[in-house]
């Protein structure tokens, strides 16, 4: 019988009572998983979009950047296309990589590659080219999700496909109607529906009340209707969209397994804290989105409670699990992960609370938001080093922290 790809000859340990533990991970890592050579390149494109988007966001918040980041250069382009860079160039690329890793098809990598390159186009001032690439990325991503649905036809995979379609709708608006902010609710819908789909999959583990799944479908349908309506009737569309976000936060708070996993420990508890904190910001974003549509000065609250409070909190929660999966970089979870998470939430309180009617505090809050994200990157790097150190020293990864 021939051996499959992920089978291997097992080395013998003659004369040894127990094989050396520290060598085991090094001997087994990569036995089944593929690391594509282009993975780091696509990840760097996404990271550049993140850095550019953050610099542009700081400029928009009125922060004076160092002389190397003067408006008129790429930072000016980044400020104009901040939302596209953060949602499509960064998050779209990361989610595209995630899905490509999951489906294990080379062609699936075209989606995150196109979104990463689209982000670079935007930074270079080639807005039409960048928007075209982002649209192509979204269309390719729709195709990848069709493959997922074909493999597993379930409510959550259908929602993932719906999320991809929302990305495509927003990108088409961005490409065909430059300057029209109606792309934003569609792009946020892409992220929110993707999170909701993943959480719906998890809620299957709990005894779900009858009608919960139908209710989620109705809420996400209302959100999509609100996004569509925004193009023609911004006020009504915005109110519907905001209310849908608010009710979705309540749905997640009631039905998500995070309410149970927060009672555990280690990485599981940390992930649950990220999720539950994110749901609070999702509710705030929903209220602020509806309020903005009604004329209240809450636009910054609506956009950044959603983009930073909800989405980045989700990202911080999942990165310790996702990074090892997509980059084959293992990390050692530790309590320090709570520091950037706390920094993110506190900096949002400064920006969206104290800074609500004070532009100086809003700018300070924006800088602190960026610091929190930088702190998180440093924590991840430190956790990767810690894993390597523990493995090499023979202690092995600590699964209890």
């Amino acid at each position, binding site marked *: 019988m021939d051996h499959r790809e992920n089978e*291997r000859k097992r080395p013998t340990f003659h004369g040894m009572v127990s*094989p050396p533990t520290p060598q*085991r991970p090094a001997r087994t890592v990569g*036995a089944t998983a593929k690391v594509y050579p282009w993975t780091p390149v696509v990840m760097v494109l996404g990271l550049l979009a993140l850095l550019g988007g953050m610099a542009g966001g700081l400029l928009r918040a009125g922060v004076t950047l160092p002389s190397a980041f003067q408006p008129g250069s790429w930072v000016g382009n980044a400020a104009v296309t901040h939302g596209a860079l953060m949602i499509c160039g960064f998050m779209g690329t990361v989610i595209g990589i995630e899905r490509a*890793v999951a489906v294990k098809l080379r062609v699936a990598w075209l989606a995150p590659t196109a979104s990463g390159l689209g982000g670079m186009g935007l930074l270079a001032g080639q807005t039409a080219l960048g928007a075209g690439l982002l649209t192509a990325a979204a269309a390719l991503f729709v195709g990848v999700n069709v493959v997922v649905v074909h493999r597993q036809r379930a409510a959550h995979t259908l929602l993932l496909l719906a999320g991809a379609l929302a990305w495509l709708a927003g990108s088409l608006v961005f490409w065909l109607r430059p300057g029209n902010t109606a792309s934003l609710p569609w792009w946020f819908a892409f992220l929110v529906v993707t999170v909701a789909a993943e959480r719906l999959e998890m809620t299957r583990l709990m005894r779900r009340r009858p009608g919960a799944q139908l209710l989620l479908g109705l809420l996400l349908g209302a959100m999509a209707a609100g996004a569509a309506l925004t193009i023609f009737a911004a006020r009504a569309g915005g109110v519907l969209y905001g209310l849908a976000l608010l009710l979705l936060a309540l749905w997640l708070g009631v039905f998500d397994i995070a309410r149970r996993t927060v009672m555990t420990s*280690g990485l599981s508890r940390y992930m649950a804290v990220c999720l539950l904190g994110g749901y609070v910001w999702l509710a705030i974003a929903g209220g602020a989105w509806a309020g903005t549509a009604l004329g209240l000065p809450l636009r910054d609250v609506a956009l950044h409670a959603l983009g930073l409070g909800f989405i980045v909190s989700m990202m911080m929660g999942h990165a310790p699990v996702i990074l090892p999966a997509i980059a084959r970089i293992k990390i050692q979870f530790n309590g320090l992960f709570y520091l950037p998470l706390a920094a993110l939430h506190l900096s949002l309180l400064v920006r969206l609370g104290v800074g609500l009617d004070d532009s100086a505090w809003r700018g300070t809050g924006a800088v602190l938001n960026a610091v929190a994200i930088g702190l998180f990157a440093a924590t991840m790097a430190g956790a990767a080093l810690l894993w390597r150190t523990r493995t090499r020293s023979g202690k092995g990864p600590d699964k209890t922290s």
Partner: protein
Amino acid sequence: MTSHTSSEPFPYDGPEELQQPIVAALSRVVDPEVAMNVVDVGLIYGVTVADGKLHALVTMTSAACPVTELLIEEMETELDRDMPPELLIHVELVWEPPWTTERMSASARRFMGW
């Protein structure tokens, strides 16, 4: 000698002395998202040990899960720790039959409030 009873966490066919080490090894693989091990979630469809080869059939709750390979790799690593060195290990991912909540262990169902 082979064994397989309905009280086992998953169907097993192979030497009896390897059954408990296999269950123990796979029970060390935890999905941090749900804070439960893969045996309790019911992701192990069955294990066969025959002809110098350990063959485990496993599934995932979602086809869109990017950590699938990582979990399979961890299952192989944990099995690798406890199995005789001459045994080949093959963990195979399958999607049929689809995973359902009926596959969860009693303790998993208690944890999730069933």
